[in-house]
């Protein structure tokens, strides 16, 4: 999965040339299989609030080697910066500055995670301090070296820093599962949810439906959800039936061949689930297509097909499944998780993707609205992949592809696995407090938020 340039940078000659010419030098990103422990030790917890003490205790509970200062701590693996009680910008320095001296000596693949509160519009100085955290996190994302990442969690006022949503998010961001998530803030708005019985198999006993599961990112999502303990119903169009049965056989899942854009898609899915007595805990709306053209050359068939598959089908499937209980057995469980696939193209726009970007920006608004509508019934969030190494991006012309691949803080494309891991995190029982968010999996792409 490593691209040709990255392989070159790892040769003796390549290393020299890259160093002398100041070329991009993408680091090897450890994934979950390479670094299974949840926290890269030692972990330094900065901040002196009560919340900081709670977070330190939580990390100790996870078996981490927790320190409260950098002195005498070589090669720090993780840093948690607790800023929950800052009330003015001038208070930030005291907490964050100890990290400055340690930045260059952080371990490869290090993690910096801030914990702060979102601005509320109630207090000028407090909001300014809280808002400032975003600029700090984003800059650290750019400055982190050797595959390290910096992210933050914004915890709504009144929600404890050890709430299930915060703990689940913190564990994800500190782990190698978030290898390609960089330079962003994730908001935890409620203390709903519960911590899983087993952190490594949070989906044990849960059933997930994944659309577009026959190949690429969809198949990776299926494999990851399977490894997290979920039972799977895998859906794809009939024309991809054989690829779908291969993934199905590999994971001992249940296949469902269906064109999600067909009028009867919702009814057929419901009938299929009822016939087999399946209730879904998780819905991953991954099916998507591209039909790229500069907008000046855009045709109705290209526009309509992308809108139909990428967004309209999601709306009708979700509406159908949600209302199944009105005229028969419910097919959705309590505490539902919906995760939809957005894209960084939907955040920043992308030349030649007016249709795609429209559909993906629509997805982000859709999950926000859906999370509100679900209320107690569950939550909905989206994942926005940036440049991911798939068959689809493999078809981009070489030069354009090389530019797109390097245009992020980690200077490389992500893997389908990275997207899948983020989806696994959002599907977890602990993620109930994340409502209508779009989490980017883009290595902090240079464009967009």
């Amino acid at each position, binding site marked *: 999965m490593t691209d040709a340039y990255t392989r070159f940078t790892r040769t003796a000659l390549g290393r020299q040339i890259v160093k002398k010419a100041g070329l991009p030098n993408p680091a090897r990103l450890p994934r979950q299989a390479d670094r299974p422990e949840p926290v890269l030790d030692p972990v330094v917890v900065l901040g002196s609030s009560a919340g900081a003490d709670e977070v330190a205790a939580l990390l100790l509970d996870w078996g981490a080697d927790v320190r409260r200062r950098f002195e005498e701590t070589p090669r720090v693996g993780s840093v948690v910066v607790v800023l929950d009680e800052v009330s003015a910008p001038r208070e930030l320095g005291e907490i964050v500055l100890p990290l400055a001296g340690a930045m260059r000596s952080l371990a490869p693949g290090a993690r910096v995670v801030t914990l702060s509160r979102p601005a509320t519009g109630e207090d000028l100085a407090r909001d300014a301090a809280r808002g400032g955290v975003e600029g700090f996190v984003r800059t650290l994302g750019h400055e982190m070296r050797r595959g390290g990442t910096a992210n933050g969690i914004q915890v709504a006022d009144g929600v404890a820093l050890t709430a299930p949503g915060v703990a689940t998010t913190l564990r994800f961001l500190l782990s190698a599962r978030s290898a390609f998530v960089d330079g962003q803030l994730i908001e935890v708005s409620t203390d709903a949810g519960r911590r899983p019985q087993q952190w490594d198999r949070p989906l044990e006993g849960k059933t997930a439906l994944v659309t577009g599961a026959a190949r690429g990112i969809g198949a990776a999502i299926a494999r990851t959800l399977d490894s997290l303990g979920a*039972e799977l119903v895998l859906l794809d*169009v*009939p*024309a*991809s*039936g*054989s690829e*779908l*049965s*291969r993934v*199905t*056989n*590999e994971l*001992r*899942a*249940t*296949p469902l*061949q*269906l*064109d999600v854009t067909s009028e*009867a898609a919702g009814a*057929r899915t419901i009938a*299929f689930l009822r016939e*087999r007595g399946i209730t879904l805990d998780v819905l991953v709306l991954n099916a998507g297509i591209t039909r790229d053209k500069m907008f000046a050359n855009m045709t109705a068939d290209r526009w309509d097909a992308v809108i139909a598959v990428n967004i309209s089908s999601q709306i009708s499937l979700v509406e159908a499944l949600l209302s199944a209980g009105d005229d028969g057995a419910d097919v959705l469980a309590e505490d539902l998780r919906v995760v939809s696939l957005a894209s960084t193209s939907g955040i920043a726009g992308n030349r030649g993707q007016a249709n795609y970007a429209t559909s993906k920006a629509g997805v982000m608004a859709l999950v926000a609205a859906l999370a509100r509508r679900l209320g107690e019934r569950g939550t909905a969030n989206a994942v926005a992949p940036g440049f991911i190494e798939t068959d689809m991006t493999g078809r981009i012309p070489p030069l354009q592809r090389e530019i797109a691949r390097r245009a992020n803080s980690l200077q490389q494309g992500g893997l389908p696995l990275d997207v899948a891991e983020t989806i696994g995190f959002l599907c977890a029982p602990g993620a109930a407090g994340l409502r209508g968010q779009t989490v980017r999996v883009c290595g902090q792409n240079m464009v967009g938020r």
Partner: protein
Amino acid sequence: MTDAPASRSTPYTVPSAVRDAYVLGGNRLPFARSGGAYAGVSEQDMLTAALEGLVARFGLQGAQLGEVAGGAVLKLAGDLNLTRESVLGTPLDARTPAIDMSKACATGLETVTHVSNRIRLGQIEAGVACGVDSASDAPIEVSVRLRRLLHRLSRARTAVQRAQVISGLRPGDLAPLPPRNSEPRTGLSMGDHQAVTNAHWGITREAQDELALASHRNLAAAYGAGLLDDLVTGYRGLGRDENLRPDSSMEKLAKLKPVFGTSNPAIAEPTMTAGNSTPLSDGASSVLVASRQWAEENGHAPLARIVDTRIAAVDYVHGDEGLLMAPAYAVPALLDAHGLGLEDLDLIEIHEAFASTVLTTLAAWESEEFGRERLGRQGAFGSVDRSRLNIAGSSLAAGHPFAATGGRIVATLSKLLHAQAKQKGKVQRGLVSVCAAGGQGSVLLLESDGK
């Protein structure tokens, strides 16, 4: 999501009497036109894909089945163990035995009968009947003279001997021999044979085109209604049968030129066109057959019981009967054995080798003369209610990869019978009739209680 089907509570016992075998479901590839979507794909790849889809649908990963019976009509000599080799490429337990069978277009139906018989006799608990054919990848042989010469060459010991052998080679020997589409004993193609039968029974062009049109419309409607959602697994980008023309019309069909019986002076007006004859096709199908105990233990509801089968053959060589008329004899024998008449059948599937094959069979059954003189009855055997005939389309629309057709029909009919029995709340009976080259025919009776 079932666990390994191998796990079971009580050991199976070999019953002293015959017990029932049930169709649990099936899986096939969308059929492609020859030279179409599956051109360049081997039969083994297609059969493996069809079996993989069946494994996925029924959660048979790692399962050791009693037997997989399969076959292909146009089979490469190297594919002698085609079915076993395909099984080894699937997630089925590698200890699942397999057998290759062959009976022209009835191959698929005969594999169902074979597996069913094994189960009925208590020899196995569950098995798969399957078939595949690729007209696109049909074997091409060398001439008989070249073959014998090559064998002599391999036996030759000295350079002189080899030179002697090679000197016997003529340019004409090098021409490859594609598979023959004619009956070895008459030299007539199957279509030309049927054209004669057709003329005998006076089947009109219009009646044939109507049947072809109904086939396309019925199959399109079946896809539309989702009937094939759990019978077909897409392959190589194909989600539906390539030959299906939902927008076909009598006008379009009427424009096609006759292609069979055109050089026979005895046929005044040839009527068989590319529209009312099946195209050469590529595809594979499979059917899961099991005992009731196995079905229950593995969490599958049987769709239909395999009641009985019959076979027949006719003497087409001496002109006694039409080449494809054997089922006209096998069906009365089968129904008589069970005290049934055509009116007792809720659904009837007659393989559409040609539209006229179906129509000549129906005409024969309606004929007093045929009933008396050929079937030895008091009068006509009976008529088929056309609203019960091939209601989800048949080979004219779907295509006809020879050995895959039987499996297509059995799985589809089982599902139709089950749904209809469930809806009506009473047992539904269905008949499958398949004609085959060599003047043969195989027929099979299914029954479903809808439970």
